[in-house]
């Protein structure tokens, strides 16, 4: 487990070792630490938009005593190497490094425009994903702690559900076809098990989007594989 102070010192250390500017987006627990809605996190999740930036950070982590975990199960689209994160394990924490995509959720212009915070550690610039995006990324997993995090996000932030809806449609087109259905499942579960206030019209709209998406795919004769990330 890692706390905000430790995360900051780790990032500072990385910043001093970088020779040129590297930008990344903090997601999940790492971003929630910056938002101060969580006290500690098990892993630091970072998304890079350039492969060379990811490689540089990976090398720095390796030189700082982090080892790469090789046996990572493919999460979505197992045939694609790019969708798999690089996991760098240290004694107390783990870095998950993603490239442009997080478990099926594509990072694109709108996601970048929604970034809430910019933290500068010398040459290492860490931006934090918006609560809406973090929530949607959590929707693709089946881990219990992700549900706790998502519930906390909805409780603490004024989630803009219109953003969630429009992003879901975009993700269904550019990323995972089953994304609306996964998110619908996720939010319904949160509503039932955590008694979280998710507007009824939102889940309804998600279901409509999912059905529409499936119809379109069926007409095109495409097969959809729906799996979730378990770990």
């Amino acid at each position, binding site marked *: 487990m890692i706390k905000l102070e430790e995360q900051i010192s780790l990032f500072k250390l990385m910043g001093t070792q970088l020779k040129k500017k590297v930008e990344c987006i903090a997601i999940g627990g790492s971003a929630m630490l910056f938002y101060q809605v969580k006290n500690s996190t098990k892993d630091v999740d970072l998304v890079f938009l350039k492969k060379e930036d990811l490689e540089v950070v990976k090398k720095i982590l390796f030189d700082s005593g982090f080892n790469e975990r090789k046996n990572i199960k493919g999460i979505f689209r197992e045939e694609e190497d790019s969708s798999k994160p690089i996991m760098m394990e240290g004694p107390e924490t783990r870095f998950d490094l993603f490239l442009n995509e997080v478990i099926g959720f594509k990072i694109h212009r709108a996601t970048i425009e929604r970034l809430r915070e910019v933290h*500068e550690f010398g040459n290492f610039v860490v931006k934090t994903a918006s609560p809406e995006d973090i929530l949607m990324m959590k929707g693709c997993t089946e881990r219990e702690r992700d549900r706790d995090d998502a519930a906390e996000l909805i409780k603490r*932030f004024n989630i803009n559900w219109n953003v969630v809806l429009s992003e879901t449609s975009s993700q269904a087109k550019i990323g995972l076809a089953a994304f609306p259905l996964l998110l619908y499942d996720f939010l319904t579960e949160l509503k039932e098990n955590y008694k979280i206030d998710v507007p009824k019209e939102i889940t309804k709209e998600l279901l409509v989007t999912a059905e529409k998406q499936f119809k379109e795919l069926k007409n095109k004769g495409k097969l959809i594989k729906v799996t979730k990330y378990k770990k």
Partner: protein
Amino acid sequence: METYELAKKLEGLQTVESIAKNLNIGRKTAINYACLLRKNGLAETIYGKRKIRMYRISPIKPVKKGHPGLYEFLNQNSKIKIYAPYVNRIYDHKPTAEEMIAKAVQTGDFRTVLSALSLFNKITDWALLSEIAKKANIGRKIGALYDTARTIIRARKMDERIKKSLLKSKITGKFIVKNARTKDLKNIEKKWNVYLPFNKADLEAYKE
């Protein structure tokens, strides 16, 4: 009502009147709520035009670790305040006015650059400013903005050697703000061979 729930309801920029309207309460109660939120660190007071008091409310206490980034630095040191599009913090060193001027120019945003003009008054190390400006390929732009700042505010005199070296420096693109050109400060534009975005009327904001 819990404080953070109140903050969640009122998230964003609010005035006492808008708080009262949103919660359907009286003005006095709205003032009390704003005060409560501010004491809990969930609201920050800012002043708009004509000294109108506004509250930036967030259900999450903003991270106050590290040092202020560009927008907070400008709001602390400039007469022209700007609305920060995002929270920015710097952790590895205390930012200097020299560094922040260069950053402001790199944003290419009209109001940010206008606000940064007053930072020329805080410059203590001209050599550092020149070094940062040259590194970012904005040397002549910084020089032109310095001359512009001198037309409206009191700023320390720039070392002649630095001025000469800035005049010779290379820049990428002549525009400081995309497609914005001045009608009034043509002499400065000509001297530095860049396009200034401000007219005299824009600079009047410093006189208010």
